[in-house]
């Protein structure tokens, strides 16, 4: 999840961060456009709801702005923002658990479009997997999402979460077993 370059006038994350800290608040829109959708999928899969994920992404972007002066390494803004969003997703889950409001509205994530009949089975399986993910622990769900949805290697996941590769593999292997049990009707 390193810095993303190559558009928005070629400005690097670090250049934009420094401009914003120097008082050019409007430049923050560059970072908003750059990262809003990039992290939307992670938040959606973690929270199981696009609407709740949108709130989380919005809050994370605002919180990152408020704490921008604390961003030690502006060239690593992407990873720093990810940590803010990750904390926000975990906090949202905890809050929902306290309020006994489960996050299981995954239907909207699959409100899609007409798919050919031949793909019905895959769509059903994908839907079942999304629901099954919500029954994993947050740590198991996160490692599954980062590896199999975001396509990160264990070493990269360790870099963004701070966990060791060994503990990540342990979480993942437990997640595989649990998902097999939850998905047995769809495999």
């Amino acid at each position: 999840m390193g810095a993303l370059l190559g558009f928005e006038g070629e400005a690097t994350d670090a250049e934009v961060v420094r401009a914003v800290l120097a008082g050019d608040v409007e430049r923050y829109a560059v970072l908003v456009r750059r990262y809003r959708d990039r992290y939307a999928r992670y938040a959606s899969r973690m929270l199981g709801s696009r609407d709740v994920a949108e709130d989380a992404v919005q809050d994370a972007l605002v919180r990152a702005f408020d704490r921008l002066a604390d961003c030690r390494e502006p060239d690593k803004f992407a990873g720093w923002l990810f940590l803010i969003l990750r904390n926000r997703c975990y906090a949202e889950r905890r809050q929902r658990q306290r309020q006994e409001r489960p996050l299981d509205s995954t239907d909207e994530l699959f409100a899609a479009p007409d798919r050919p009949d031949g793909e019905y089975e895959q769509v059903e399986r994908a839907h079942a997997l999304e629901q099954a993910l919500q029954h994993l622990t947050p740590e198991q769900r996160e490692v599954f999402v980062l590896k199999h949805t975001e396509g990160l290697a264990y070493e990269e996941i360790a870099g963004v979460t701070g966990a060791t590769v060994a503990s990540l593999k342990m979480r993942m292997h437990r997640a595989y077993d649990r998902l097999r049990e939850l998905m047995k009707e769809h495999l």
Partner: protein
Amino acid sequence: MKTGYHALVKRLLDGELTLAELPPELRAEGEEALRLVGAADRAPVALSPALDERVMATVRRHAGDARANRVWRWLNTPRDVELRLRVRPWTVWAGGLAAAAALALLLGRAAPAPQPGPGTQARAGTRDSVLVRFVLYAPGARRVAVAGTFNQWDRSIAPLVPAGTSGVWTTTLALPVGQHQYAFVVDGARWIVDPAAPAVDDGFGRRNSVVAVSAPGGHTL
């Protein structure tokens, strides 16, 4: 169906083995497991186009509040006021005599002669920045700098200089009154907290050192 996957099948899912590398008796289980992870939806999730404007509207409001807070703090922070009067001695004498004459006229008796003075200095309030000395023992380091909230975490602004060959690095900075978070950066990449100062979690799993600069006097770290 067994509850869990075979260890080799988990290695297949982790990308460490291929299906062909599994023993024949595990291939069906491997295919099933691949169907499971293959169901992960990698399609992008599109958020509302209005999100950008909502974020920027909030950000502008927060920036306005922050500016107002800075102005308010600036207006309320006590500062040194230094007043110097530069006068010629005869004006002091003439002014003193005139004042004495006026006083004598008013009171009907002679006034004592005024004492000449080289100038007047008035000091009020407290200083708004204080010299803070940063010291780090880093014997193997080639470069050391201090970065913090006082310099936007810029690693290039405040280098420390070695004190001889003892491995001690030091620098002195003028910091505004208030609380600052900081860390040392060794060789341009390694962030370390100050072992001689309190530290706080920065909210993202890392530690920052803290220095609280109060108005009178200075801190030595």
